């Protein structure tokens, strides 16, 4: 996070990601409710579709960006000791980046093997 733009930019990112998360979640829930894939293969075929894999990847990127801003807000409010703050933020940063890479791997592999 850059020191200068960390207020306004974080706020904008949180709002934009929230809109995408909201819209996409409605689509995802609708999809699962109306015609859920019946088998592992069907799931993989669905995820391998370029539009789905791209929008799904964007969904998780939005989710992690949104989560990062939220966690950072909580830490800024409640975690005062400097070292503890660095530690907590680092744990979440690594966790979110790791989760992001893992999600990317899952989505790309679904596309590769079909």
């Amino acid at each position, binding site marked *: *996070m850059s*020191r200068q733009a960390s*207020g*306004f930019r974080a*706020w904008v990112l949180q709002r934009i990601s929230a809109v995408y998360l909201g819209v996409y979640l409605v689509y995802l829930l609708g999809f699962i409710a109306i015609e859920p894939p019946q088998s592992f293969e069907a799931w993989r075929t669905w995820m391998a579709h370029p539009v789905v894999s791209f929008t799904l990847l964007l969904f998780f990127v939005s989710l992690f960006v949104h989560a990062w801003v939220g966690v950072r*807000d909580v830490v*800024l*409010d409640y975690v005062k000791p400097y070292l503890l703050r660095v530690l907590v933020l680092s744990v979440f940063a690594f966790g979110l980046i790791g989760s992001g890479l893992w999600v990317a791997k899952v989505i790309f592999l679904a596309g590769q093997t079909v």
Partner: protein
Amino acid sequence: MKFIVFRYNPDVDATLRMQEYEVAASRGMMLRDALMEIKRQDETFSFRHSCGEGVCGSDGVNVNGTNLLGCITRVSDLKEPVTVRPLPGRPVVRDLVVDMSQFYQQYRAVRPYLIRRDPLPEQEILQSPGERDQLDGLYECIMCGCCSTACPSFWWNPDKFHGPQALLQAWRFLADSRDQATDERLDALEGPYRLFRCHTIMNCVEVCPKHLNPTVAIGKIKELMLKKAI
């Protein structure tokens, strides 16, 4: 009526205590009148008050968990026993008197005065009625501190977060057609703390004795930032 009042005198007391008083409520009695009656019963009791009509903003106190002005609150509207505490989160000077220095520092930080780049005209700087209307709901703030001391974000970061009162005033000058320092003012609000610790909890709106809305003002500041950014 039974009043339970926060008492603490740092010169004498090791710790705070809650003291009970019995006050005979009269018709139309305001909380400030009750506090003055308590003061008559016990002259060691301290509290701030001045105008007695909701203009000076001196007698902000926390009553049954809500910040309000003693002078414009009828005791008949309060639930017994009436618990009176100082405004939350502020260092107690004595009894209901709190140290508002940080609150004033945050106010000072938003530069609450007109800044002009153009040479000043001979007479007043004119405004259209429409431009003047933009200041309604903003200029009426009496700085009683009820809002900022009800704000959890201000409790956690009173040294860094401006708080609802100062941010309402920041918007009051951003919204003023006569002010010419919009960019500077917006730049000064950047960073994760000064403006963006507001999480729209809206305690400020709920308690403001003047029925002002700092949350809307804060939203307008963010909107203006967005407009300037794209």
